[in-house]
């Protein structure tokens, strides 16, 4: 399996993603600079977190015009697996690869702490290693994670089972106390209609080693590795 992690000017979780893929998962992983036009032929493309272009104007607004994003669009169009974490999620929305947008947290503050998210859809390339309904404990660290989309889009996301992660309490309940940023329908992560592009605000790469306190994010990388192995054989 081969993975690439895209580095935009201002990305700051690129190294973290690379480390987890390489060191924890043993995946052949390299960085790709945003000015490149060719992704090569990876099994997985990660758009990492950070502050591409300082998040000036809007998070992800400027980065989506980077040359590499055109290549990511083509790759996704062919069914390639794309994972956008935090700023990566914001870029995917701005680039139109995922619907909706991420606005400022309703607290108007940067929020950095562990949250609980429930796995809503087990049946994706990103989540098969989890149990349906499993509650994960994963850190967030963002100022603009308040997911919003028009009612029709939200309805479609729900109907099609494309809300993959939802903020909940530790017990897995919705409502008071779970949602850290005001996201519509407590949405923490969504997938595109074809099921190959996923964006989420929490950072699974920060919860993939015991020494850091939680390994709940590991399942996502395990799911991806298993998926890519199957895809290679097929």
């Amino acid at each position, binding site marked *: 399996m081969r993975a690439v992690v895209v580095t935009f000017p201002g990305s700051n979780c690129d190294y973290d993603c690379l480390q987890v893929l390489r060191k924890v998962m043993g995946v052949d992983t390299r960085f790709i600079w945003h000015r490149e036009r060719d992704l090569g032929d990876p099994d997985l493309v990660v758009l990492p977190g950070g502050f591409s272009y300082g998040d000036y*104007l*809007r998070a992800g*607004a*400027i980065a989506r*015009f980077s040359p590499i994003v055109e290549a990511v669009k083509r790759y996704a169009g062919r069914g390639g697996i794309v994972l956008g974490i935090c700023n990566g999620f914001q870029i995917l*929305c*701005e680039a139109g690869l995922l619907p*909706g*947008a991420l*606005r*400022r947290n*309703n*607290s*108007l503050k940067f929020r950095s702490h562990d949250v609980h998210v429930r796995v809503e859809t087990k049946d994706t390339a990103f989540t098969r290693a989890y149990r349906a309904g499993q509650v994960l404990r994963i850190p967030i660290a963002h100022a603009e994670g308040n997911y*919003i*989309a*028009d009612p029709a889009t939200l309805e479609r996301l729900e109907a099609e089972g494309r809300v993959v992660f939802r903020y909940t309490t530790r017990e897995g309940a919705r409502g008071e106390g779970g949602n850290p940023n*005001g996201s519509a329908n407590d949405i923490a992560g969504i997938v595109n209609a074809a099921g190959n592009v996923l964006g989420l605000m929490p950072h699974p790469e920060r919860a993939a080693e015991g020494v850091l306190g939680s390994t709940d994010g590991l399942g996502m990388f395990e799911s991806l590795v298993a998926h890519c192995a199957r895809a290679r054989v097929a």
Partner: protein
Amino acid sequence: MSAYAIEIRVTPRRGLLDPQGKAIQHALDSLGFAGVGEVRAGKLLVIELDADSPDEAAARATRMCEKLLANPVTEDFAIEVGRNAGQPEAAT
């Protein structure tokens, strides 16, 4: 060719929650300012632009908004050409 000062106002879509506007309204209230109704908080961009005519300047600014400056999912925009908006005089 002349230089125009383009003022672009980007505001949260009507009907969308505006937490920042709400927070400001609340803060004004608690500072004792009476009679404050709704507050909306948006962005103001002031762009110097060389163009052949005000119309051309406006057309280009519109394209900028559509492409980059406003997010169609969450924001509306309005463009004004030519006011010397670059130097708002500080009220004193």
